[in-house]
């Protein structure tokens, strides 16, 4: 399969720019949950980058792990923490 040369250049440029923008957003956004979602989106663009560099094995692995499982683990941590907060508040309310 032959991809047009200029199309390839445009796609690599777009993927690179989106990777950098999403990386900065993932670190600088105020809420933790949106930062996790930006990390997941950045992982998806990394999958596109791996496909453009002709690495299908790495692309499949990154698609499953980077944007699926790691995001799920981050979100479960954040949900568990908010639950912990609620439980503490209830305990404080009981003692008062």
């Amino acid at each position, binding site marked *: 399969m032959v991809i047009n040369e200029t199309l390839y250049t445009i796609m690599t440029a777009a993927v690179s720019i989106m990777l950098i923008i999403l990386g900065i957003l993932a670190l600088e956004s105020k809420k933790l949950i949106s930062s996790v979602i930006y990390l997941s989106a950045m992982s998806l663009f990394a999958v596109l980058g791996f496909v453009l560099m002709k690495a299908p094995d790495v692309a499949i692995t990154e698609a499953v792990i980077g944007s699926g499982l790691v995001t799920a683990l981050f979100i479960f941590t954040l949900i*568990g923490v908010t639950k912990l907060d609620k439980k503490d508040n209830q305990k404080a309310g009981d003692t008062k």
Partner: protein
Amino acid sequence: MKRIVSILLVVVLGYFVYTSLYVDGFDMAVSDNRQTSISDAYITKSVTSENESVTYMESTDLENGSANIVTAIVTDYRSFDTLGEVTVLFLASIGVSMVLAGFTKKYQFKMKTNRILKTGARLVVGLALVLGVYMFTHGHLSPGGGFPGGSIIGASILMMYLSEENFRARMASFKWMESLAGTVYVLIGIIGLFVATYFLENFLPTGTVGALVSAGIIPIVYILIGLKVGSEVSGIIDQFLTEEVAS
């Protein structure tokens, strides 16, 4: 102030890396002399023997019969390295369960499930499991392999946890599968040491490149890696979803 100093530090570091990589005409992105580099030996499968070319579905009895060259490197040429990586993942999973233990455990993670999630998960979970198994049995022919296949199995277990409210995977059988797979992996290596010359050597006949039953021990090793990675990922997810209940 701290922010400016750190930006300055990072920029200086980036400048040094950039000059050491790209100035003096040293362009790493395009390598011209691929024919003389070591990776060409991996592609023509002539690392230890002399070999001119490989043709799909015609060449037989090479030193390594895998059509997917990345798989050939991961499970044959660098198989000892892969054994170490699987051990690191096993240690990470053990560490997660040791850190998160401490209280008596009880399944308490309740998310509100809705009808769309339940019906969709019922449709997708079986397909995802079959896709994972397909991926690590065909690891020597098509992209994929044991690592993504095992992760897909873990992801389908995660989907079951999310869609069913009182679902709890039987972790004991996963632990059995994991330790069995690891033990068989090491045993295959020791058999290679005794039958042939070195640890984890490919001692079975390699067959035709591209056939489903080919490549010697590579499919067996990748199936074992898939089972091990799948049970480890499922164990990590189970630990994260099981909540501590101080009773």
